[in-house]
Every structure is written in structure tokens, then in C-alpha cells.
């Protein structure tokens, strides 16, 4: 019997993941013992866990270690994404507190699922091995399927959960089949070893088919057209805080894994693959924006706008340069703030049971609740990319990376799309400030304290990142991948 050799394990490298898992389990235990009133505070424990995990992740910035026998890597790229995930999870926990009480879902399980999903996301950003990436994808996805169906008495929520589960399992199948083919062609699951083998495999159909299938799997997860069919229904049917979460953190995680796989495992295919990503990017942003134009429901409009934003971020992938990858990372940071902010205000406006979410329901909001209307205006300005908000800084940096590499047409199409998007974002502002109320009875707008805090934090972040982005862009620049 040969002695068992354990690979070197750097436990401090997985600090954030351990804190999140521990907090999730603590929440599950508290749920058992807490009374009804005590459960109102569960969200703050989840928030505390994400803040602590975020601090641990931030402490690892500048560190570069590969551990667990090369399966797991902590570098600035993964650290930057982990900070995005913690922001997304923490803000989601915060905007959930009131919502969960209203909808009767303030259970430890709800917050534990958010944290479990975040663990999966961290694994996706740090994994340097196909098996580990897949485990991360599954942990994240399973938790999200449950979260989508959390409001069990609402039919749309059940539908969203089931639809997401079936199509998500389908896309995981594509991803896994692609991984199996890539393994079959290269004989290894480690990304860098695949990258080395890929150079010797020109024209090998097994490898190409594997890479294409993995692209399809990831495109499903980031909701890129034509693999977006699940997005509108799932985003509309899920509880609003969960939608805010799904469209920011998990999307960023899918992009992180997508970027790392293509930068480290498939660099040899760069010349051919940009055509695919280029078309995906153009289709995604155009289709997302055009369909968002005709929506009547603000939540559904945000779902389509989320597809369009995935298209902008795909620009960073198509460019396939260090600037492109850090541009995508910075944009995802900005997007986390502005989209969760927009959803926080949507929750405020929608009231109990999410009944009032059409454009008409926002009419006269400028008078009924001036501060809510102002905050929402800042958020949609940022989503539209109007200076001096963060959305502008993010888009500017992302599209510049395309110009630097000579992708002029891609940048032009992206800018045209941004202009189109202004129309439906500003429509909301027009309704809030320039339409009188139509006389229909709507619930009084009251802003609960945690929602107010979340709104203030996101508004400040969006303005700060818009006015003084240099420091954060520098951080994002250090979080590039070597293409």
C-alpha cells in the first residue's frame, strides 16, 4: 500500500467560502430555535456573514496562490469577482428583510440558500479545473432553483422555479458533455494543462465540439441570445429580491468562469472563437433592448434589460484582451449596484404581493414619494449609461477596450444599443414625473428601514463609482486574465 499523499492545502485561501458555508449552517440552526419575531432578524445575520466573507476576500487582494493541487486559485481576478458576489449577496439579504416578512418567507432556509449560491459562485470564480467549476455551477444553480420558487403560494413563482430547473438542468447537460469531450481530447481537466494540449490539437473535432458545447452551457447561464428563453419568465416570476440577486451575482459568476475557461484553456482558439462571441454579443444586446422597448411591466422590462447588459459584457469577452476581461469585471461590479438598487426601489413601489409593477403604477410617483422617485431615477440613468453615473464609467471603459483592439463595429453597435435603451429607461422617469395619477387606488408607499439603507448605499455607490472611478478601475485592471 503506497502512503497517502495529501496535496498542499492553503486553508486561508478558501476563507470566504468557509465563512459563507458556516453562516448558512448557523442560519439553518437558528431557524429551528427562533420564534416568529426572532426570524425577522435572520437577514442581518446573512448580511453579516457576507460582509465578513467580503472582508476576508478583500484581504486576499494582491495574493496569488494556487492550492488544492492546482484545482483552486486565488488571484486578483477571483478576488474582484468574490467582492462582487458578496456585495450582491449582502444587498440581497438587506432588501429581503421586509419583503420576506410581507410574503411569509422569512425563514433561515431562504437566507441560507442565498449564501449557498454565493459559495458556488466563489468556487466558479476560483476554480482552475473542469470538475471544480462544474461543482460550483451546480451548487449555485440548485440554490437558485429553490430561491426562484420560494414564494410557494404564488403560481408565477412555481412556474419560474420549474422552468428554471428544467432549462438549467438542460444547460448543465451541455456544459458537462462539453467538459467530457474536452477531457476526452486532452486527457486532463486542469485548465492550464488543457491550454497546453490545445496547441497540439488543431482541427481535432472532439476538442472543438467540446469547446462549443461548453460555450453553449455558459451562454445559457449568462442568458445570452439565443439561449435566453428562460430569462424573462424566471426573472418575472421569482420573488423580486431573488431576481435582483440572480441577475447580478450568479451572472457575474457565470462570466467569471466563462472568462477563465476561455483565457486559460482555449487561448489557442482565440482566432476562431471571437466570431462566435461577437455574434452572441450583438444578438444579445440588440434583442434584449428591442424587446425591452415594448414591455408594459417594469419587472419584465428589467429582465430584458438584464439580457441586454449581458450583451454589453460579452463585448469584453469578444475582445479577448486583459483590458476586455477587466472591463467586464468592472461593469459587473457597477451592474450589481445599479440593478439591485433598481430592484430595491421596485420592491418599495410594488408593495405587498408585488401587485403594482406596470409603468402606469409608477405615474405620479414623483409627487407621492419624491425620494423614492429620485433614487429610482438615478438608478435608471445609470442603467442607461448617462454620465456622471457609474453606468457611464463602466460602459466607457468596456467599449474602449473594444476600440483598442480594433473592434470598431462592435463598439458602434454597443453604443447604438445604449441609445435605444435610454428610451425605455426614461419612459419610467417620464411616468414618475410627468404623468398624473390615473385615480386608481394604489397602496401607500412606505419605505422600510433596511430597504432605505440599501437604496442609500446603492445610490452612493453608483454616484461615487461614476464620479471617482479611477481607483476602482485600477483595481479592476489588476484583476485581468492573461489572454
Amino acid at each position, binding site marked *: 500500500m503506497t502512503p497517502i499523499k495529501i496535496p498542499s*492545502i492553503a486553508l486561508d485561501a478558501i476563507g470566504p467560502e468557509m465563512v459563507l458555508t458556516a453562516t448558512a449552517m448557523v442560519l439553518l440552526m437558528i431557524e429551528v430555535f427562533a420564534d416568529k419575531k426572532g426570524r425577522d432578524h435572520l437577514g442581518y445575520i446573512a448580511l453579516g456573514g457576507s460582509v465578513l466573507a467580503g472582508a476576508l476576500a478583500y484581504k486576499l487582494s494582491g495574493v496569488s496562490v494556487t492550492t488544492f493541487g492546482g*484545482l483552486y486559485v486565488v488571484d486578483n481576478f477571483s478576488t474582484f469577482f468574490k467582492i462582487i458576489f458578496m456585495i450582491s449577496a449582502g444587498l440581497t439579504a438587506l432588501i429581503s428583510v421586509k419583503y420576506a416578512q410581507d410574503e411569509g418567507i422569512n425563514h433561515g432556509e431562504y437566507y441560507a440558500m442565498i449564501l449557498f449560491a454565493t459559495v*458556488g459562485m466563489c468556487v466558479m470564480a476560483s476554480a482552475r479545473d473542469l470538475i471544480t467549476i462544474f461543482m460550483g455551477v451546480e*451548487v449555485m444553480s440548485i440554490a437558485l432553483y429553490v430561491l426562484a420558487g420560494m414564494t410557494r403560494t404564488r403560481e408565477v413563482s412555481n412556474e419560474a422555479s420549474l422552468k428554471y430547473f428544467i432549462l438549467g438542468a438542460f444547460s448543465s447537460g451541455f456544459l458537462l458533455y462539453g467538459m467530457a469531450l474536452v477531457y476526452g481530447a486532452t486527457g486532463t481537466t486542469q485548465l492550464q494543462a488543457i491550454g497546453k494540449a490545445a496547441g497540439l490539437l488543431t482541427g*481535432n473535432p472532439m476538442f472543438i465540439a467540446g469547446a462549443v458545447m461548453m460555450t453553449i452551457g455558459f451562454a445559457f447561464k449568462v442568458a445570452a441570445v439565443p439561449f435566453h428563453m428562460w430569462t424573462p419568465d424566471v426573472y418575472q416570476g421569482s420573488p423580486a429580491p431573488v431576481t435582483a440577486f440572480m441577475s447580478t451575482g450568479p451572472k457575474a459568476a457565470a462570466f467569471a468562469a466563462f472568462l477563465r475557461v476561455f483565457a486559460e484553456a482555449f487561448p489557442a482558439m482565440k482566432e476562431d472563437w471571437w466570431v462566435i462571441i461577437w455574434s452572441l454579443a450583438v444578438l444579445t444586446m440588440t434583442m434584449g433592448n428591442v424587446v425591452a422597448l415594448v414591455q408594459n411591466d417594469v419587472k419584465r422590462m428589467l429582465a430584458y434589460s438584464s439580457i441586454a447588459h449581458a450583451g454589453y459584457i460579452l463585448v469584453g469577452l469578444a475582445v479577448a484582451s486583459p483590458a476586455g476581461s477587466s472591463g467586464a469585471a468592472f461593469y459587473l461590479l457597477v451592474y450589481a449596484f445599479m440593478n439591485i438598487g433598481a430592484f430595491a426601489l421596485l420592491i418599495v413601489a410594488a408593495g405587498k404581493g408585488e401587485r403594482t409593477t406596470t409603468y402606469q403604477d409608477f405615474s405620479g410617483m414623483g409627487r407621492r414619494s419624491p425620494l423614492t422617485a429620485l433614487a429610482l431615477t438615478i438608478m435608471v440613468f445609470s442603467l442607461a449609461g448617462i454620465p456622471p453615473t457609474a453606468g457611464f464609467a463602466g460602459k466607457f471603459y468596456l467599449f474602449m477596450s473594444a476600440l483598442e483592439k480594433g473592434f470598431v463595429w462592435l463598439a458602434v453597435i454597443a453604443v447604438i444599443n445604449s441609445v435605444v435603451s435610454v428610451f425605455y429607461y426614461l419612459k419610467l422617469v417620464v411616468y414618475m414625473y410627468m404623468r398624473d395619477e390615473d385615480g386608481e387606488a394604489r397602496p401607500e408607499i412606505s419605505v422600510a428601514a433596511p430597504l432605505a439603507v440599501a437604496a442609500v448605499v446603492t445610490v452612493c455607490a453608483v454616484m461615487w463609482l461614476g464620479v471617482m472611478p479611477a481607483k476602482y478601475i485600477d483595481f479592476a485592471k489588476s484583476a485581468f486574465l492573461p489572454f
Partner: protein
Amino acid sequence: MEILMFNLLGGLSVALALGAIISKRPVNSAINLIGTMFCLAGLFAMQDAHLIAALQVLVYAGAIMALFLFVIMLLNVREKVGAESRRQPYWQLLAVVSAGALFVPLVTLGGGKILKFKEAASGFGTTAAVGRLLYTDYILPFEIASVLLLAALVGAVILTKTKIR
């Protein structure tokens, strides 16, 4: 002998898989699929992957397919379920063409370059060897699997429990 066994098991598994997608009754499809799983287990065993072969029978042919059968019988699914999709021959044609477009290059390798691998060490794929790998090189994915199972378990309970306090 090995070639003969491979052809036998391989041919049978392809035939059963075809049966699973062609047969009109859901129960027949499920039974065919169970047969496919058994044949695959045989193929794994021939490659000295004993653990995978055992898991294939226990987990897929046993647990998962038994669940399939239960669901089919409980829901009392009859033939008409698949009828709608059968009325769209274009989709069937498209599916066959795209499956062929994947299958043909994979089998012929399309003249591309391939890597030569060295033979696996003896004992590779046995339960002991896989267990050893799981607890050393792949300890991290193994631990993440425990998070996955916990999340799935809690999720299943919270979604299906009739009444939550």
C-alpha cells in the same frame, strides 16, 4: 473476447437507447433506459472502472430510474403526451441532422490531430484508487459536493413541505 463483449454490450446499449426514444409508451422508454444503463455499466467494468460500474447500476439503473417509473405510474402518463411533438417532422429532421453533424466528425475525427495517452496505471478505476483520489487530489470538489447535497436537501424540504410554520 474483449472485442466481442464490447460489440455485444455497445450494440445492445445503442439499440436500447434507440428504443428509449422511439417507443410510444413512457414506461417502455424508461425500461429501455434501464437496459442502457446496465449495458453502460458492463462497458465501464470492462475498462476496469469497477466503482463507476457499480454506481451506474446502483444509482442510475436502481435509484433514479426507479423514481422515473414511480413518477410515470403515479401520474398515469399515457401515449398522448408525446403526440404533439411527433406531429412536427421538421424538428425531428433537424434533431437527426444535428446529431449526425456531431456524431460523424467525432467518430471519424475529421483528419484532425489527436494526442497519444499513456496507458493508465494498474488498479486505476478500482474503488480503492478512486477513494484515494477523492480524499487527496480531489478533496475540494468532494467537499463542495457536501454543500451541494445539503443545499439540495434543504431546498427539497422547503419547497415540498405542505405547511411551514
